[in-house]
């Protein structure tokens, strides 16, 4: 570090001023240091010096070399050549300075790590000051563009290290100027200016914002844009905010962070390695795959699976929400874009290595409580009695159940004397507890290296994540491995080339269900476990076949390898004209190894029985190869206040998909399964397909003085998925913006409302995300006809589907209005968007045609959907003393309405025009009948026989809304729906997120809440996870929450009277009484971190250490707690039949060297 001497009028500047003297780089570094550890430094630092008869400057140098202290003094005041001696051992700085300046007129002041030397005011000194005032000096004020004074701008005399900084009012004075001096004005995020002093005595400077300021530029499609000039609905998330959380993937870090980027749990629930559902601004289409409206994820310019991204590699994430900002991606991005930029090195930066890790313990949350054996048996028998069916538990069994429950007997299985039969269904096991472990370990390790030379920079990272499964006997788990490499080199001043490589490997292992069932059925089976089922055989072996199945049954292991390589160049022959060329190759391979094993189930007599007749082994190999080439050229030009930007580009993609699978039954070596060592029936098949796109696109932006903003984007896209004549589509968009705060008339309000911008955009996008070859009639060839000829089942071909000769793009058109504003010295900021998206030409069922056609008519572009909503972000950040804190809240909503659909009868079982997606049609129910007489009297008047012909006390009283004296659904159509009404809507509404953080002396505390403000849920009558008893014994279960059912002793019950027969459903029609509130707020994460002062860690050559503890999913506020998790409501087999989410407590550390 260079020594800076202060020239001045003898006034010793304030600490902040001192800082500002430094060059900008030094300044940044120092701020960092100051924040790391505060004033304790001067006390805690012990120095040992032994210098005899040396110049004062040498003492200073020695101290600066061995510590972080820096000296500031005026060499005209204090002669650095004064000879001194000093000898100390482990002394603090004050003692050393007292020794050195003993008997001199120099006094000192220690401000943190900075030591300011001055002369005590004697006549001599004053004289010098007087003399110096005769020399040339300049003063003035530095302001920003808006006229606000800028404190802390450093001003340096060019060619020297002498300088000063502006004070709180933006004023400065600089003296001792040599003739012909040039002053350099610099400030973080502003353009450095140089001004030749000449004869001026006063120089007032207006600083302009630097276009490459860190906060100011955001990534947009195929480029970057100044945030202030954005006209679309764009939200950014910094990598910093992700880095500090203990999350395994980007999805978990993003949930709730961006309004209307809706990230929800899939039917895989909290399974290790489970992905998440993404959508931007709600439902995009009613057609198959697109119903979720998944956004297009682009990582460093290349489309990629978001689960392959290591959250630690993320530098920034931009979410493009409206059509105007995503139109440049044309048909690939009908429902928004997530742009992820990974970290890169910096040219000329010193090499840095960092390591981060966390270890977490995950335990399942919001599992329903199983009831006791006694209560379960009673409820099952009661329901059977009500239905007039035979009791599932005999009196003898009930007796045993009670004895076992009370501890009077301890055996679970009993031999029936003389019959070689065993009897046991009286245990009291809490299977939910038995299936899941209390804790499962998760760990993550990341190493990152970055740095650069004069012309090149590099970034490399490796990451490893490992999560154990939560099933106690299960063999599941998940590992992911990440490698990321970014290299950039400047070949010449106009050419930069770069290469990137990304490798991701994910290995997921699941339990493969029981027997012939797949793993989804596992949770169905677990949920329906009865407490009376025995757990252990009399000889102590595990007896429960579900647990044995988990332990000894087969597994499905999926290995995903994703290798991506990109090379490209950036050419800028003329300033402002930038051409980028990019080629990407991606190989994405999967290997699924699926084994269903035959396992032994103990029999009570000490023997075994086998679980299934034959095992099964299947290997699936998939390899998808993707090529993408794109080239863009852009030109940026400013003429006076007119700023133009023009971009044109071309892109093409080719995807080849390949899948080969084979399977065999009957494994000879189940522990080392292979197709070669299996002997049974075999199958062999493949799937091969491909698609390609081509597109040209362009963007034109214009702004006048960053005040009036204008932008056009367009893309002309072709896709192999459509027939030649309907293959190409043009997707244009336009947007305007108005930075009102740059108007002169705003200046009076500006101190309060610092920035305000209004935006409007309109554009349309196509949807390429449809099946391949929809327009081609092809004849599928199949194997194994259900017919034997000459001893074999022959191959055969079937007829082609009827194809549409006019099928084309679905189009989504978005109109967006937005406003961004910041207030009170930019401490408060807010952004609001209100929008409407219309999906037109949506795939829908064709007009019904006579049966004589003999085939289902092809889909047609004949449906329309309208989605409306808003996105809001409000953020506040401030500092009180040493505590800096921030709060950021997001709120979003969207509602989709079907505006056109081919449903001429308006039948409610299909989409109909005017339907709000998620509407629940149901009956209005008033209460449970209290007495049989009441039920009889009511049903004599109002006919409830549609559901059942017997109505008794404890049954539901439905309300006859249409005065027909009959409870029915009419013809179940929009026009004739009888007593059905829309009683709720199951789409999440008012999704919110709240992030609050504070920093104090190296401590950081952050918490994050996420939730849904309104959601109605209705659980169908057959869902045992909610109702407990269903129409048959096998599909029934009992939890603590289902115990509150109607009996003669419990007439004030929540649930109606149960029946163990089809009669049960009469009380479980969709109805108002059993609508549940699905709203929730969840404390997603709390992190408490501490950054160890650099002083302490620097002794072991470490430049920074942060340690933290973190908790995920700590608290949930929901009316469904203890019944159903409001986020993971159902798996593919129904309510509660899902892998539970977990609460994770982690400790972690980030260390940089």
């Amino acid at each position, binding site marked *: 570090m260079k020594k800076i001497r202060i020239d001045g009028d003898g006034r010793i500047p304030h600490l902040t001023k001192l800082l500002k003297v430094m060059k900008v780089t030094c300044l940044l570094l120092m701020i960092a240091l100051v924040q790391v550890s505060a004033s304790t430094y001067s006390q805690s630092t012990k120095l040992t010096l032994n210098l005899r008869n040396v110049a004062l400057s040498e003492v200073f140098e020695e101290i600066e070399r061995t510590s972080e202290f820096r000296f500031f003094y005026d060499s005209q005041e204090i002669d650095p050549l004064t000879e001194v001696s000093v000898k100390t051992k482990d002394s603090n700085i004050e003692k050393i300075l007292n020794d050195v300046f003993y008997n001199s007129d120099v006094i000192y002041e220690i401000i943190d790590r900075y030591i300011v030397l001055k002369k005590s005011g004697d006549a001599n000194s004053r004289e010098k000051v007087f003399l110096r005032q005769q020399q040339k000096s300049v003063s003035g004020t530095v302001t920003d563009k808006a006229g606000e004074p800028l404190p802390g701008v450093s001003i340096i005399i060019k060619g020297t290290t002498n300088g000063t900084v502006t004070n709180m009012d933006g004023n400065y004075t600089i003296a001792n100027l040599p003739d012909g001096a040039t002053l350099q004005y610099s400030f973080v995020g502003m353009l450095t200016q140089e001004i030749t002093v000449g004869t001026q005595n006063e120089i007032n400077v207006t600083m302009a914002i630097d276009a490459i300021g860190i906060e100011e530029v955001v990534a947009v499609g195929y480029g970057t844009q100044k945030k202030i000039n954005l006209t679309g609905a764009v939200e950014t998330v910094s990598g910093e905010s992700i880095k500090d959380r203990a999350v395994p993937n980007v999805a978990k870090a993003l949930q709730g962070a961006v309004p209307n980027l809706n990230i929800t749990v899939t039917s895989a629930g909290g399974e290790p390695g489970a992905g998440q559902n993404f959508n931007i601004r709600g439902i995009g289409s009613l057609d198959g795959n697109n119903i979720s409206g998944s956004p297009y994820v682009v990582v460093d310019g290349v489309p990629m699976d978001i689960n392959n991204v290591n959250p630690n590699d993320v530098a920034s994430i931009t979410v493009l929400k409206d059509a105007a900002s995503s139109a440049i991606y044309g048909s690939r991005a009908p429902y928004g874009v997530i742009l992820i930029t990974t970290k890169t090195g910096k040219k000329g930066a010193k090499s840095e290595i960092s390591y981060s890790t966390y270890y977490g313990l995950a335990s399942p949350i919001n599992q329903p409580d199983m009831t006791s054996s006694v209560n379960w048996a009673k409820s099952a028998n009661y329901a059977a009695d009500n239905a007039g069916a035979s009791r599932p538990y005999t009196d003898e069994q009930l007796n045993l159940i009670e004895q076992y429950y009370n501890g009077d007997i301890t055996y679970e299985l009993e031999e029936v004397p003389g019959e070689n039969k065993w009897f046991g269904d009286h245990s009291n096991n809490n299977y939910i507890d038995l299936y899941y472990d209390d804790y499962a370990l998760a760990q993550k390790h990341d190493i990152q290296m970055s740095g650069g030379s004069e012309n090149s920079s590099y970034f490399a990272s490796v990451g490893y994540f490992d999560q154990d499964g939560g099933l106690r006997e299960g063999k599941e788990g998940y590992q992911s491995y990440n490698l990321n490499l970014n290299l950039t080199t400047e070949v010449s001043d106009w050419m930069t080339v770069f290469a990137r490589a990304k490798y991701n490997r994910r290995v997921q292992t699941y339990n493969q269900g029981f027997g012939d069932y797949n793993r989804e059925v596992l949770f169905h089976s677990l949920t329906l476990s009865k407490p009376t089922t025995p757990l252990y055989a009399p000889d102590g072996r595990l007896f429960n076949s579900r647990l044995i199945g988990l332990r000894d049954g087969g597994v499905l292991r999926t290995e995903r390898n994703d290798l991506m390589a990109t090379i490209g160049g950036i050419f800028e022959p003329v300033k402002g004209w930038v051409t980028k060329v990019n080629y990407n190759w991606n190989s994405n391979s999967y290997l699924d190894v699926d084994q269903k094993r035959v396992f032994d189930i103990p029999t009570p007599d000490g023997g075994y029985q086998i679980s299934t007749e034959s095992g099964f082994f299947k290997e699936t190999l998939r390899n998808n190869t993707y090529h993408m080439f794109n*080239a863009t050229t852009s030109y940026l030009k400013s003429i006076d206040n007119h700023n133009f930007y023009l971009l044109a580009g071309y892109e093409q993609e080719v995807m080849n998909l390949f899948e080969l699978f084979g399977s065999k039954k009957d494994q000879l070596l189940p522990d080392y399964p292979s197709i070669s060592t299996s002997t049974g029936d075999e199958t062999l098949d493949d799937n091969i397909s491909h698609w390609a796109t081509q597109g040209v696109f362009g963007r034109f932006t214009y702004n006048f003085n960053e005040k009036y903003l204008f932008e056009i984007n367009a893309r002309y896209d072709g896709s192999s998925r459509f027939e030649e004549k309907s293959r190409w589509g043009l997707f244009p968009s336009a947007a305007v913006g108005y930075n009102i705060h740059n108007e002169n008339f705003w200046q009076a309000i500006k101190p309060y409302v610092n920035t305000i911008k209004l935006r409007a955009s309109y554009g349309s996008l196509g949807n390429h995300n449809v099946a391949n070859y929809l327009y081609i009639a092809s004849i599928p060839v199949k194997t194994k006809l259900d017919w034997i000829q000459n001893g074999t089942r022959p191959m055969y071909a079937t007829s082609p589907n009827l194809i549409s000769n006019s099928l084309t793009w679905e189009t989504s058109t978005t109109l967006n209005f937005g406003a961004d504003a910041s207030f009170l010295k930019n401490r408060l900021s807010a952004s609001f968007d209100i929008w409407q998206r219309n999906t037109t030409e949506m795939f829908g069922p064709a007009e019904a045609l006579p049966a004589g056609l003999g085939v289902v008519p092809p889909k047609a572009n004949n449906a329309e959907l309208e989605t409306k909503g808003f996105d809001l972000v409000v953020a506040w950040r401030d500092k009180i003393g040493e505590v800096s804190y921030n709060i950021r809240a997001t709120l979003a909503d969207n509602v989709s309405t079907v505006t056109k659909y081919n449903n001429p009868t308006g039948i409610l079982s299909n989409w109909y025009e005017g339907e709000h997606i998620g509407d629940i049609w149901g009956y209005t129910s008033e209460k449970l009948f209290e007495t049989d007489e009441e039920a009889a009297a009511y049903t004599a008047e109002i006919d409830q026989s549609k559901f059942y012909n017997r109505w008794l006390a404890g049954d539901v009283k439905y309300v006859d809304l249409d005065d027909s004296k009959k409870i029915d659904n009419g013809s179940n159509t929009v026009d004739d729906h009888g007593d059905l009404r829309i009683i709720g809507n199951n789409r999440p509404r008012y999704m919110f997120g709240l992030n609050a953080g504070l920093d104090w002396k190296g401590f950081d505390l952050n918490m994050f809440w996420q939730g849904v403000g309104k959601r109605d849920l209705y659980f169908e009558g057959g869902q045992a996870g909610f109702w407990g008893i269903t129409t048959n014994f096998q599909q029934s279960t009992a939890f603590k929450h289902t115990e509150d059912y109607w009996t003669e002793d419990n007439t004030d019950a929540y649930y109606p009277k149960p029946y163990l027969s089809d009669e049960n459903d009469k009380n479980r029609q969709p109805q108002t009484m059993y609508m549940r509130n699905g709203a929730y707020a969840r404390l997603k994460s709390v992190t408490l971190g501490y950054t160890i002062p650099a002083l302490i860690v620097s002794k072991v050559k470490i430049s920074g250490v942060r340690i933290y503890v973190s908790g995920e999913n700590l608290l949930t506020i929901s009316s469904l707690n203890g019944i159903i998790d409001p986020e993971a409501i159902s798996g593919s087999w129904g309510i509660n039949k899902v892998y539970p989410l977990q609460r994770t407590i982690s400790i972690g550390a980030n260390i940089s060297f």
Partner: protein
Amino acid sequence: MKRYTIIISCFFAVLLTLSSCDEDILNRMPLDEMNDQAFWTSLDNLELYSKQFYSNLPKYDTYDIGDHKDSHSDNVYAILDFSEILKGTRVVPPSPSEGGWDYSNIRDVNYFLDNYEKAGLDIELIKQQVGEVYFFRAYFYFNLVKRFGDVQWFDKVQDIDSEGIYKPRDPRHIVINHVIEDLDIAAEYLGSGKLAGGNQLSSEVALLFKSRVCLYEGTWEKYHA
């Protein structure tokens, strides 16, 4: 200035190279299915197609054996309830999958008969396959007549814009005449059972089936027409 020229030329050269070879990039035909146009070329393909219909013949199947087939008749005592057909309360359901009007088999056989000649193969070579398909058209129509009586007769594949799909039902005797014609062709084309090999249709089967059709329809003509 030289470097600009290089860049510009590079950029456009790349674009040109790409666009020149790009004529076909968006023409992507299925890779693991036979294109309809390319299918009708060989005897093997015709055989693949005609084979599919065999699975429609009566065979061992949970719902097709024993009691189930008889459950619509008075041979069976109903445990729970009589079948709708037996009670006479059955309404033709709207969708083919629920047992309503279903012409999908008819379309499938006609698809073959419309296209097999494209292969340009000598009829002597493909008699077995063509004969099988004629047999199955007769078989499917006979089942339709048994279930619905009058039905639309189609001897060509119908398209969305075909007039034919809107025509009224053809009287059953017309349909049965066509069925008999088809069976005559089948009997002519199909080889003798001794030569046709295991579990394949033969001329004897076609004649057998013709006799059944004629008996059934003759009975109906006699007692109901």
